């Protein structure tokens, strides 16, 4: 949920959890993870909506074993409907609905930034207990800003260096956008942007320290907001398609690096082993989790879901305590 800084601990939206699945690299498994965990959670009786945030190559419906829905985000974008909840269509799974961005039209491909901003605001009005946002690939403002809306922010990677490299870029971009959104002064934004351009040689630790120095000179409260908000960040990491034990070690190792050098906190939430039945069931038009409910891979999805839920409730308790203490 988008929350103003002041509202951050005020429980305005405590009845809805937004799960964001990002990471930047196409094909890493965000759609697989968001739909599978969505199905599992809905099965437990929770009211879940999957929001297909991949405007350009939407296929969460296919991953759920559905045809393209009649109503999609393009209806909303084109003004055919004013209430985003009207385009949350039922899926073959009880308690699970889908907001598909798959559409017809050219209009939903690369919508203007004002449309994207409107969409992001609308994410808050989707009525459900759990909103699963499947974030599209890339590092542009749409995927990154949508990811920023998450209460549970999950980075999904595969163990390949391509996905690892992109995930680091995605996290850096995410931190940059987060800081930028807290500034509200175009000149300061430019300064910060210039500093972040030097990340490749100087590293994020140094860049952030410099940014804080610069920001606090002209806007002390903005600097405090940045410190607080970076300090509260808690990303989660899931590694998909692991083949061997080396692959299983890569997740905790990435967390180690990010925790020390990126100024934010990231926790390892689990791995999903490579399983060709995932692809085979997709070809048959059935979600893997529905076909192989009792497989070991399915157990890995469940463990990951549990891990994410536990950390979300621990975090909400912490917020609650902070709120009561303040």
């Amino acid at each position, binding site marked *: 949920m988008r929350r103003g800084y002041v509202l951050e601990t005020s429980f305005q939206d405590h009845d809805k959890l937004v799960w964001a699945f990002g990471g930047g690299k196409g094909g890493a498994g965000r759609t697989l993870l968001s739909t599978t965990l969505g199905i599992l959670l809905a099965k437990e009786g929770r009211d879940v909506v999957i929001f297909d945030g991949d405007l350009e190559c939407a296929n969460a419906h296919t991953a759920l074993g559905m045809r393209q829905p009649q109503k999609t985000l393009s209806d909303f974008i084109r003004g055919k409907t004013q209430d985003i909840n009207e385009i949350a269509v039922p899926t073959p799974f009880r308690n699970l609905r889908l907001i598909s961005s798959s559409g017809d039209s050219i209009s939903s491909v690369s919508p203007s930034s004002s449309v994207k901003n409107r969409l992001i605001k609308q994410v808050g009005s989707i009525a459900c207990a759990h909103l699963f946002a499947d974030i599209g690939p890339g590092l542009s403002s749409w995927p990154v800003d949508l990811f920023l809306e998450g209460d549970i922010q999950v980075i999904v990677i595969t*163990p390949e*260096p391509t996905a*690892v*490299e*992109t995930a*680091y*870029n995605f996290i850096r971009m995410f931190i940059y956008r987060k800081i930028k959104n807290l500034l509200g002064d175009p000149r300061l934004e430019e300064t910060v942007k210039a500093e972040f351009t030097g*990340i*490749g*040689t*100087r*590293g994020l*630790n140094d860049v*952030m*320290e410099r940014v*804080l120095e610069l920001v606090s000179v002209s806007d002390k409260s903005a600097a405090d907001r*940045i*410190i607080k908000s*970076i*300090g509260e960040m808690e990303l989660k990491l899931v590694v998909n398609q692991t083949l061997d034990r*080396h692959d299983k*070690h*890569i997740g905790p*190792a*990435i967390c*180690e*690096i*990010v*925790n*020390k*050098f990126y*100024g*934010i906190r990231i926790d390892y939430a689990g791995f999903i082993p490579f399983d060709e039945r995932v692809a085979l069931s997709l070809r048959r038009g059935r979600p893997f989790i529905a076909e192989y409910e009792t497989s070991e891979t399915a157990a890995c999805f469940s463990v990951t879901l549990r891990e994410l839920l536990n950390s979300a409730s621990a975090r909400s308790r912490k917020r609650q305590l902070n709120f009561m203490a303040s």
Partner: protein
Amino acid sequence: MIRNARHLDLHEILNLRPDAEPEDIERAYLHLTTIYSENSRAAYGALSDEERRWMVKRIQEAYEALMIRAGAVAETRQSAQGRKQISQSPGVPVRSDGHISAGQDAYKQGRNPPGGANHGGELAIKADSQLSAKAVTGAHLRNIRIAKGATLDDISAATKVKKSYLEAIESDNPQRFPAPVFMKGFLKAYAKALGLNPDEISEKYLHREQ
């Protein structure tokens, strides 16, 4: 303040609690050097080259400093607890400071120990006098250990260094160590347990290796 690796202390760098045992330090060191190595898949695209190199150096420093510190703590604890481990072993006299007693205390008396204060027998004199040479070999160290009546198990118990590593030191086999710094740390602990000067031994032993 936003967290920054440059502000982390020795334990934090290795993700250790302040009361970490030498085995924990060893494990953390090995684990982290892998993560931050040049060919690490996990670090791919994560850090600037300067940051990565800085971290590798910092891990090394933290490891060495904590191993030495842990060795000193273990020694104090040992002497406080009555130095049971070593004194149980027959024939190994234990000095009041917890070191295995030597014929001479090479640590204090330097390269040319006088023969007068000899409690450890001829072999010990012979062995200790080998230390005045420019180079120290694993065989020298083994001789000193045997002269002092200590087994590898005694030394391993006293230093918390695995027996296999002690054997590697005595057989001059640096390949057994995952990284040179391991050998250095363990060698120092080993020398200390024998009552020798850790820095001097490590210098003479490793210098020869190179």
